[in-house]
Every structure is written in structure tokens, then in C-alpha cells.
């Protein structure tokens, strides 16, 4: 069954009673585009100008060391980027960093959320401590980790190792990627914890009680009830963290400067080093464009995954 509505502008619209579109939206149809225009337009400019410039630069010869050399470069910038010995390590490092930090923050975040869901003495203070790293600027936390915790001479870990008679470890020299992952995970774990903790708080108590009457043990309760309940929140954490983790820069810049060699050079750092250390804006723009495409591909899949998830839950 459907109903036909004559709108003021004269066109005939067919609405289905089942589709719950509020009529107010339909009435406003004719004026709405004009009102939206400024907002949409400025957002469009906001996005399109930098993107357009990046695309433009990526196709011309543009080296700050050699300004006279200009002109259309065809796909040369992309070719040089591809041939750059740091390119594949950078992609790999980006993926390793992203994957490890996601796994660590989500796993630790879930475990902490489950723990903090129980009452224990001093829980409020402890919650504050868990969240605190999130409020520290990336540069500052990287410096703290570099100079106070991981440093082979002054660091707390070196102190601890010495006290049990073990030699100190040069973390950034011998395990550079591991160290960066550690720092970034430390920064992002509070975010995961916060989202997962609020989500676990919304788990229906009656559901847990029903499961315990059904005979679920602690482990079964976690895997069959709690984890499925958290799945949507985990999706949100993964999506948001991915967007930020693809562009991790400050932590690498302050600790390892992408080294030793290319051991901790990710895509963001590579773009920086091409543009502002080798002064080749053209190749750097090509790298930037690649990063944009990569982020969009990842975001596309994540958004689809998440919206499917939401649809299924409804």
C-alpha cells in the first residue's frame, strides 16, 4: 500500500507508510539545498584545495634544491617513489606498527575493562591512572619513554636490570620497532579502555545472570556474552585508532628519527623525509597521495564492516 502526496512544488511523491520518513524533511526539501550550500561548499574547499595541490605537485618536477627544474613530470615521481629503497620498508613498518598497536590496545583494553567492571578497593584512583597517558602530548610521552624509562644509562628499566645483575638493553638501537610500538600502545591503550569500559558497563546484568543460571563459567561468560557485546565497541576502537595510527609521526621523530636505517620509517615519516630532508616536494606529494589512498581504502572497508555490524545488530 502506498500513498501519493502532492508537494507544493507540484511533483508527486510516493511514500510508503512503512518507511518512517518524518514529513517535515520532505516539506523542507525545496529550500534545504540552499541552506546547506555554504556548509557543504566550505567543507568541499577545505578538502579539495590541499588534495588538489598534492595531486598537482605529484605530477610536476619540484625540488627545492633545484628550483629552476620545473615542468610536467608524467609519472616519474611515482616511479622514483617506488624505486626508493625506503619505500617498501615504510609500507611494511606502517602495517606492522598499525597491526601491533591495534592488537595490544584492544586486548589490554578488553582485559582492563573486564577487570574494572568488578568492584575493588581504590578503583576510582586506578581508573584515573589508566586514563592519564591519553592526556600526555605524543612528543612529551615519547621523550619521557626515551629518556626516563628506556634509556640504557638513566632509564628505569636499565636500573631494574642492573639491580638483578643483568646488562642494560639499548632499546632504540636493538629493538627500535618494538620500542615505538610500546610507546604508541601506551598512548592509545587508554582510549581503547575508555570506549570498551563504557560499553561493558552497558551490558545487561540480567543477561549475565541468565547465563550463569544456564551454567556459563567465567571463561564461557567472557567469550559467549561479554565479547560479543563488546564487538561493536571494538569495531569503533579499531576504526578510530587506524585513522590516527596510519599517520604516527611525533613519536618516531622524537625517538628514532626513522632509524636505525629504515627500521622505524613509516609512510608518514618517509613523506616527511622526502619533502623536508631531501627537499623533493614532487616525490613527497606522490607519497602523500599514496597515503591518502591507503587510508581511504582502509576506511572504506572498516566503515562497511561497522555498518554491516550495526545493521545485523538491529
Amino acid at each position: 500500500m502506498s500513498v501519493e502526496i502532492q508537494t507544493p512544488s507540484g511533483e508527486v511523491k510516493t511514500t510508503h507508510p512503512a518507511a518512517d520518513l518524518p514529513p517535515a524533511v520532505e516539506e523542507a526539501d525545496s529550500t534545504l539545498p540552499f541552506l546547506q550550500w555554504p556548509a557543504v561548499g566550505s567543507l568541499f574547499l577545505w578538502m579539495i584545495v590541499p588534495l588538489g595541490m598534492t595531486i598537482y605537485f605529484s605530477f610536476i618536477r619540484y625540488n627545492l634544491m633545484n628550483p629552476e627544474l620545473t615542468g610536467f613530470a608524467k609519472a616519474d615521481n611515482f616511479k622514483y617513489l617506488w624505486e626508493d629503497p625506503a619505500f617498501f620498508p615504510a609500507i611494511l613498518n606502517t602495517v606492522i606498527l598499525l597491526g601491533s598497536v591495534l592488537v595490544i590496545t584492544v586486548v589490554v583494553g578488553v582485559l582492563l575493562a573486564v577487570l574494572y567492571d568488578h568492584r575493588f578497593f581504590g578503583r576510582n584512583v586506578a581508573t584515573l591512572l589508566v586514563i592519564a597517558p591519553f592526556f600526555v602530548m605524543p612528543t612529551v610521552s615519547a621523550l619521557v619513554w626515551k629518556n626516563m624509562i628506556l634509556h640504557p644509562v638513566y632509564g628505569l628499566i636499565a636500573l631494574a636490570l642492573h639491580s638483578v645483575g643483568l646488562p642494560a638493553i639499548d632499546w632504540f638501537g636493538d629493538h627500535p620497532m618494538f620500542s615505538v610500538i610500546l610507546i604508541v600502545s601506551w598512548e592509545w591503550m587508554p582510549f581503547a579502555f575508555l570506549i570498551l569500559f563504557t560499553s561493558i558497563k552497558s551490558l545487561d546484568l540480567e543477561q549475565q545472570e541468565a547465563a550463569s543460571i544456564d551454567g556459563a563459567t567465567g571463561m564461557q561468560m567472557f567469550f559467549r556474552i561479554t565479547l560479543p557485546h563488546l564487538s561493536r565497541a571494538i569495531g569503533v576502537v579499531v576504526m578510530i585508532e587506524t585513522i590516527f595510527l596510519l599517520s604516527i609521526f611525533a613519536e618516531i621523530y622524537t625517538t628514532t628519527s626513522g632509524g636505525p636505517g629504515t627500521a622505524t620509517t613509516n609512510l608518514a615519516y618517509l613523506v616527511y623525509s622526502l619533502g623536508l630532508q631531501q627537499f623533493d616536494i614532487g616525490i613527497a606529494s606522490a607519497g602523500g597521495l599514496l597515503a591518502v589512498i591507503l587510508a581511504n581504502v582502509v576506511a572504506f572497508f572498516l566503515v562497511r564492516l561497522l555498518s554491516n555490524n550495526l545493521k545485523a545488530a538491529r
Partner: protein
Amino acid sequence: MDNRSVKIKNLVKTYVDDRGRPTFTAVKDINLEINDGEFMVLVGPSGCGKSTTLRMVAGLEKITSGTIEIGDKVVNQVKPKDRGIAMVFQNYALYPHMTIYNNMAFGLKLAKKDKGFIQNSVSRAAKALGLEKMLDRKPQALSGGQRQRVALGRAIVREPKVFLFDEPLSNLDAKMRVQMRAEISRLHEQLDATMIYVTHDQIEAMTMGDRICVMRDGLIMQTADPLTLYRQPANVFVASFIGSPPMNLLRGTVQRGDGGLVFNEGAGPNSVKIPLRGEIATRAERYVDKPVYFGIRPEHLSNEAMDQMHVPLNSTVDIAEPMGSESLVYLQAGNGNMIARISGEHIFRHGDTANVYLNLSKAHLFDAETEEVIR
């Protein structure tokens, strides 16, 4: 056949806070025996400890002191899943990420029953509840009534000794509630299982219960079958709680007059005076010059004196609610109001003198101090 009775002995529940300090005693030393196959209803106003009691039977709440026996076995330390109980919650408590089938099968799967057996029990329960077509759906795709039926199915599949219900119908609309009420009663007939049913709806209590346990402030006020509760309330609370509209209660004293004992509402020129006759007069003997409540149900006020036991009441009509075959008449009598349920088609006008009679053989007297009935 094993014994499926439930015995609650000297049960106390004191809630404690994070640091173990007692905060509130919700259940105060109650004793209750529920027989094998009986449908017991726990009823009472909000906060009286019904849910707390039920949850202790289920094992979801720790017992402070006292014992609970299910089938002659003390279960204080037994885990919920091993008590032989199943519970139906007010908010259904279905697992939202599982299909209806898996919701019902969850307990059996955890108990590692074999697949054929699970399939059999679930489809049998689904058939009995008319859920066969929905087994693949998720709970979100069901109506409230259907969800509660799934919750019932999940309970049935466990084949428990005792079913526990905590206000299972209070989230449903009026029509659905009537239907589900009948369905649960039918289920009780079919399964012949012991059921404990918590509600604050007295219609549910009266229509479903083999026996009803009326609670207040963590204490049991009376436990009896519905008709006894209606006819012989043990105290003022039960008298006013059961019945709708509630029993009329007048506070006054018993006095010895010229023609025998009289209930006198006391002060005021037009206070109600009711001559006491027959059995109620005998009961009143011990309370001469003592404060009592006189109680009579609205349906025991009538507009004609049928026998000796009907005594007239001086009153005027305040408001009348005609409902066709009968009318609820709010009367101005003495210092207060009374409600009468008058059968037949009559017209009452505000301010008219009402011709009503109290049926003394259906009246009650309560001790005003202890609030217990005078027998």
C-alpha cells in the same frame, strides 16, 4: 519422581556495601514452604523484598542467614546452574547476538548435551510456544510478547524442578498480559512443575496462584489460597492490599450500648455508629472500649436489607461511577469516605441520601494496635 518442593527457613538478607558494611535488610527472617507442583505467587508493594527472596532461591544473591531447600536438599552453597531452577526475567534477558534457537539451546550446549537431544528439546518447546517460524531470528526482530515467550522456552528446555518468574509480564501491554497469563497457567498445568511467581499486580496473583504469599517490608504478612486471602485477611495490610477497590476501613472503638455492642467511629456529631450483631459481636466482646478497625469490602454494601445481618448506614452520595450492571458509589459517611459496589442499574446524584446497608456477616474487626484480625 523426585521431590520438587521448596522450603525457606528463617531466611534473612542484609545487603552490604563495597566494604562489607551492612546497608539494608531487605528480607527479615521469613519462613515459607512451597509444595511439589504448586504455583506460589509472591506479591507485595514495591521494595518489599519479593525479588530479593526469589533471587536467593535462584542463587543469584548470597544468603545472609537461614536456609533454602530445593527437593529436601539445602542449596545455600549450590551454584545457580546446579539448583534445578530456571528463571524468567522482567526484561527477558535474552542474548541479543544469538538466534532464538541458540538462545534456547545455550544452557544445553554448555551442559554438553548431544546435538539430537538439544534439537529435540528446543523444537518441542518452540512448538508449544508457537515460535517455530522464528528460530533463525535474533531477539531484536521479535515483539515483547514473543521475546518473553522465548525466555519461557529457554526455561522449559532446562527441564527445571522449579520455575522462577520475576514480574515477567510487566513490560507487556494489557492485552498481551492477559494472553501470557493464560499461557503461563496452561504451562503450569502441562508441566506440573513447581513455580514461584513474583508480581505486584494483585489480579495476576489472584488469578494464577494456587497460594499467594503477601509480603511487606521484608516480612510475610499472610500466606493462603486466593479465596482465603479475600475472605479472611489476617491483618489490616492484607485486607487493604487484596481487593479492588480496597476494603473500607474505619477506625473507632467498640462500645457497650443499650441494645448490645456498637462500633463507634468516635468524635464528631455525625460519626458512624454500627450496631454489632451475631458472630462479629461475639468477637468484639474482648475489645470493649478498645481501639479497633472495622473493615468491610465495597461489594458487601448493598442497597437492600436482605436479612437481619444487614444494618443501615447513614451516608450521602459523593460521586458515583455507573458501570452498567453495577455502580461504584463513593459515600460520605461520618468523618470519612466509603466505597460501595452496588449491583443493578441505579442512578445516584451527588448529595442524595444513600440507602445502603452493611452486611455484618462479611465484616471484619482488626485490633488497632497490632493491626491483626480479631477472631
